[in-house]
């Protein structure tokens, strides 16, 4: 319960954070700390230096930037849950943020921290993939934009390099598109055993992404293509696990997760589809 020794630096700005990271391979960024601090205390990770982003209030915002909403990486889950812009234009993010952990977790945990951690059980990761969100990354060579679907590389592995800071998430305005996020947790505060995020647009078809069904949040493209009309919901849901590679652990075997994904996908699509 006591971390191994580490150095501690406070970032005054994004640029300063990038500078502090320098060329050290063994540095870690600290945001809300809800993933990193337990790992430190268990000594599962032993960074030489922690760069604390926690005081960067400038990264805590939700803004309307035209067709999209821009979310600062340090915006807390509780803020996402209650933000009026998100509630109006992208309620999927608000809803999903509201089911994460418990109130204490939601008041500390941040969207950027959750995404950058790359946990396949993260609710917001699948939601961002379903939304085709874009991630803004600042590194030593300037800024770049990464599509959500390209961001996640493996379990706890992302596109972020050792000097990169995730600064902003851009999500689309959903307009009259239907949406849903359905998940099963053993206890209220647990990570999802399986989750299904669905966005159904009248013009543009469906987007379905799965939580904890592979080392990364995955798009269920076979199922998306199978869904043409409301009558296809059942068959599309059956196809949802096609591209998945679910884990087996104490919360469920891979076989059970595949079954569960189909059930939850059907429920998500029924909820997301316009009546």
């Amino acid at each position, binding site marked *: 319960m006591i971390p191994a020794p580490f150095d501690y630096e406070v970032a005054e700005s994004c640029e300063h954070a990038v500078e502090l990271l320098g060329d050290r391979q063994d540095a870690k960024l600290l945001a809300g700390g809800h993933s990193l601090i337990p790992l430190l205390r268990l000594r599962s990770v032993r960074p030489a230096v922690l760069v604390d982003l926690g005081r960067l209030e400038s990264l805590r915002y939700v803004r309307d930037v035209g067709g999209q909403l821009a979310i600062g990486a340090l915006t807390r889950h509780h803020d996402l849950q209650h933000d009026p812009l998100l509630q109006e234009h992208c309620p999927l993010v608000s809803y999903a943020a509201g089911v994460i952990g418990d109130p204490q977790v939601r008041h500390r945990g941040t969207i950027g921290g959750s995404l950058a951690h790359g946990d396949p059980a993260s609710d917001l990761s699948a939601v961002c993939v379903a939304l085709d969100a874009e991630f803004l990354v600042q590194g030593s060579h300037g800024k770049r934009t990464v599509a959500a679907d390209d961001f996640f590389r493996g379990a706890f592995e992302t596109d972020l390099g050792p000097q990169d800071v995730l600064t902003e998430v851009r999500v689309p305005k959903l307009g009259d598109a239907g949406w849903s996020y359905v998940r099963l947790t053993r206890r209220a505060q647990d990570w999802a055993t399986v989750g299904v995020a669905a966005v159904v647009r009248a013009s543009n078809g469906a987007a379905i992404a799965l939580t904890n069904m592979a080392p990364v949040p995955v798009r269920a493209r076979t199922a998306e293509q199978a869904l043409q009309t409301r009558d296809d919901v059942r068959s599309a849901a059956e196809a949802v696990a096609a591209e998945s590679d679910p884990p087996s652990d104490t919360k469920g075997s891979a076989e059970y997760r595949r079954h569960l994904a189909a*059930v939850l996908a059907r429920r998500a699509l029924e909820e997301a589809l316009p009546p």
Partner: protein
Amino acid sequence: LATITADVTLGRFVGSPVGRKEDAALLTGQAVYVDDISLPGMLWMALVRSPSAHARIAAVDVSGALAHREVIAAFSGEHLLDEWQASLPCAWLPTQDTKQPNHWPLTVDEARYVGDGVAVVVAKTREGARDAAELVRVEYEPLPAVVDPEAALADGAPLVHKEFGTNRCYTWSLSAGQVEEEFARAEVIVKERYRQQRLIPNAIEPRGVIVQPVPATGELTMWSSTQIPHIARVTLSMMMGIPETKLRVIAPQVGGGFGSKLNVYAEEALALALARRLGRPIKWIETRTEGYLATTHGRDVVQQIELAATSEARIRAVRARLTLGLGAYLQLITAGVPLFGAWLYGGAYDIAAYDFECSGVFTNATPSDSYRGAGRPEATYAIERAVDALARKVGKDPVQVRRLNFIAEFPANLVTGLTIDSGDYHAHLDAAVEMLGYEELRRQQAERRKRGDATELGVGLSTYIEMCGVAPSRMLGALGFESGGWEAATIRFLPTGTVQVLVGTSPHGQSHATTFSQIVADRLGVAYDDVEVVHGDTTATPLGLDTYGSRGLTVGGIAVYHAAERIIEKARRIAAHHLQVDEAQLHYEDGIFSANGRTLTTKEVALQAWAAHDLPDEMEPGLEATYVFDPENFSWPAGTHIAVVEVDTETGEIDLVRYVAVDDVGTVINPAVVEGQVHGGVTQGIGQALFEEAVYDEDGDLVTGSMASYMVPSAAELPSFELGQTATSSPSNPLGVKGVGETGTIAATPAVINAVVDALSPYGVTNLEMPATPERVWRAMAATRG
């Protein structure tokens, strides 16, 4: 509601939900736990623990740790062997031939479970001790491990202690009546196999210990987060060769135990040894990870139960066979735990013959020991599940089958020789059925089934009985338990009229300060706030036997009551002397002696007794009395709990939608405290049914070693409990009380699983392994579909 009220009324406090005395300090952070204590010159201890479930220890090199700048000392198990005069205490060997392995605070030859202590480091800071522990180099030579108790009994299984040539620790049995004959003539036989998964107690406060030595006098004071300061003193004194007079054990505020702190641990012995050796205070605080690995676990029993019944479902005989996973060593009462439940596999039912046998088996797992209910939840689960299986087999309603078989005459002499002193099982079953609206739920269930609802409804009962209080001493002696079952209390009236109550019980959440104050305030006629309960300090209190097994009130509280009677007895003589009347002429009520229109209060008598200026001839000064109570019988609470579940037949999710509990715990001293005990107990029982399991992989690694993976339920997973009460006064004690600390845990688990099985009965499901996870529900349904 059919509520029977006990006939005991003491005064205005007993029976009233007065506010808990404990809460203000707890809620404002002023209560002192072990980790709040810091002493000058204090050093920190950290253990090096085996990462392997079974390995020969080829070498331990502490030189790396000794080189750390904050380290004062570091030792292997070998280095410290001469500190111990005996193994860590084991107070219960159920049979003459029970195999008791050596159990040193640090192992020397082999590591036998993940978490077994191998070396210890002492440093100036907590962080330094933790860092330096990583610098100890241990060479482990892996050995094959076995964690499943049945696999451990198989031929060729890896041996946990090779010197025994077997993993079987003991086999103990109990038989009464004509068992073979009853089974031979039975019209219906139910044969079931159940598994009690391993559980981890998870007290919110981890264990911790501080030892302060006074080298000049040889005195050692140990603060420990323990349920048993008195038993710790006597056993550690013997183990360590410390004169009992020189060892003081203090249990300060203790944040829960659930049986896991009813033990004497390696870390206590190590802290004493190192304090004695180094002459400086030693502190150790358990990490949560260590709490999962190195604090005792519970349950881990494979059960086979058979009922012999008539075609009408009248049960005639019960046969039970148990295989227990003891883990790697015998802790304080590891081997004896099933004996607490050995008489209860017949449940609340009137049977003619009974046969019980249990075998304890060593495995490469954390030692198991008592966990809330200890032996009785296991027994209750088996019989309550089997009674439902019998009801299904004969096509009768489970309520009806229970009514048909209930013990109805009290006192009830069981075929096994024990006597249940009081009860009315029909009363609490009727009350619970009415509170629930049982018939209406059965109607809704039928309706859902008819319309093919994907969410099934299930109703499950548990009509439990319990024997608790742990005593009487003679009975414990006959069972091979090394201690007695009595309890002591001293009441001391101070000159200003306030009252100290010094007790041998050692509460850790049970509200003894509150409930004992209620009893004393009523009997002595003093204000509730003028009573102060002192506990958990072997120097301050009378010799006691601590807190576990629902004995606090039924044994300790009765000692308090009797001590108060002794105070009144002496006060009466003093009052008679001062009022110049015969004792027989004195009337006593609510702290006031009166005769002929003159009065004297107990407070006034107390001052007279202290001043001693005018006492009856040959009377000792002072107003103080001690009573040691040894009960004549166990305490026999009982009740009916009913769970209602909804099962999502697509995902396998179980939603516990209602929970009704009607308990008969005799006289209630404080209804709020009783409700709290029932809420906590029921929650732990539900935890076993639906959430909790210590999972080991085949290598003996604990997979569920954190709060994220070991699933203790939270309030969000639970419905609002609906509580009711019936009361039959216990004739075994003057207050008519019965134990309540474990009832909920004992009752809840079978009620919940019976409800789940009931919900899934249309699918042919008859059993579910615990915890009944969504996946297990899904698999059980898939299996019966073919």
